[in-house]
């Protein structure tokens, strides 16, 4: 069994491709997008709570962020996906998908909260003070002035987090997926274990890279352009104070 035949056997790679395209990609993307949306819905308010002036609120938000960033994702998936039904809270019935999305969404929320918090704190204090001087309340200042600027700065980091969420979606199989629920990794693994050949997993890797690599380039592009901000046009510049 040569290295080339074990990892790059073209007939095994092509054999797994139709199922990856037909079943895997849509499942991987739906888990990732749903978990990301949930993560943003959790992370946005959590980031503001982590900056609350009330120390108890701050501490609780901090605890959430620290716990779910600190636990391995697979542990969280088990705790949520098995733990909720085990304790009688079978909120999603027997379907493992929503539990998996919830678990990954909770983890994503912790990372998003931390990213947004650091983004907000990087906004110049002067913005906050000027806004307050103009008569806006603390809450309106945070939501309408500071937060949007902070968000713009951290779009590259948020895109990075989306890449991580795509990769985390491969762990959902521990909850037990039926045939049509398999995401990309599971489909490749099924072929690999049936044949003893690892080429299907090479194809799985290629499928993931098809999403994650362009996203990485997007991150770099956003990073370059958003950090520097919009450049004023030449005509405006001539009107600067002399």
């Amino acid at each position: 069994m040569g290295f080339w035949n074990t990892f790059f056997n073209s007939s095994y790679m092509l054999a797994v491709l139709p199922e990856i395209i037909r079943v895997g990609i849509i499942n991987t993307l739906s888990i990732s997008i749903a978990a990301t949306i949930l993560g943003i819905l959790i992370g946005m308010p959590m980031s503001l709570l982590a900056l609350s002036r009330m120390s108890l609120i701050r501490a609780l938000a901090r605890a959430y962020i620290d716990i779910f960033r600190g636990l391995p994702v697979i542990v969280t998936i088990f705790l949520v996906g098995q733990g909720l039904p085990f304790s009688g809270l079978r909120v999603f019935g027997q379907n493992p998908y929503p539990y998996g999305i919830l678990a990954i969404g909770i983890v994503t929320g912790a990372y998003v909260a931390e990213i947004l918090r650091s983004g907000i704190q990087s906004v110049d204090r002067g913005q906050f003070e000027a806004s307050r001087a103009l008569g806006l309340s603390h809450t309106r200042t945070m939501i309408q002035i500071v937060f949007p600027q902070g968000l713009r700065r951290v779009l590259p980091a948020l895109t990075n987090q989306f890449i991580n969420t795509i990769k985390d979606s491969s762990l959902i199989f521990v909850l037990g997926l039926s045939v049509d629920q398999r995401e990309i990794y599971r489909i490749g693994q099924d072929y690999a274990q049936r044949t003893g050949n690892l080429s299907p997993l090479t194809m799985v890797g290629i499928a993931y890279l098809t999403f994650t690599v362009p996203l990485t380039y997007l991150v770099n592009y956003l990073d370059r352009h958003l950090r520097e901000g919009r450049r004023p046009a030449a005509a405006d510049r001539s009107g600067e104070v002399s």
Partner: protein
Amino acid sequence: MPFNLSTRASSLFAACLFGLATAQAEPADVELNQPGTLSVCIVDSNAPMSSVVDGKLVGYEVSFSEEIAKRLDLKPDFKFTVFEGIFAAVANHVCDMSAGSHSITLKRLEIINFSSPHFVGSFTILSKADSPTKTVADLDDKRLGVVAASIQETYANETYKKTTVVPFPDSAAMQIALLSGQIDAAFFEGGLAAIYMKESQTPLQVVVSIPNDDQPAGLGIAKDRPKLLAAVNKAVADMIADGTYARIYKETIGGDVPNLPGPDFKPSR
């Protein structure tokens, strides 16, 4: 200066002794990843075959593999593998031998070789005692857990066509899913099912128990290692003949010791 005869004779004699000594210290020339060590892939959470109890690896497969290694004059080195990855692991020389209590099937023979049968068991479907899933007929439109790549998965897909078969990476994850109600029934190895029935805090019931006499298990060895296969087969035959197999079975599993098919066993499916 030429050696005199007595020196030459004694050198020859010493060389023979050394050769004999080496031949006895080294086993018959078998293909191994590392000379002197027999690396064995096994599965975790699979009592009574292989599991960790009080920090120690124990079980039928563990004791059996240790005995094989001893007879081949090798040191056993156990590695945990996910069950579904165990055949690829052997085929790709991650380990020299696999002892995952896996049945000899035609499909698996396409990937690796198996020793002559060393274990014969059964498989059992369990459900919670208070569950309405009591018989095979009740499995229709229900979720039945299996370990991915097991013969239980193949059997379930072929036999229970109206049931949703749900593969898990290992028995432990499947057991939790059964207890939490995420699956309605779970397909275990017979020995493991018996242990769960006895030890589970949540009462369980047997839905069906299927003997597996025509699908005995064998030890997995890569196809390009004929000498290792021959050596392991000889060890298995000796262990059956001299009562070691029966002793290990009684110590680790208990109950009546089943007869094993001989080395000329050929799977029908």
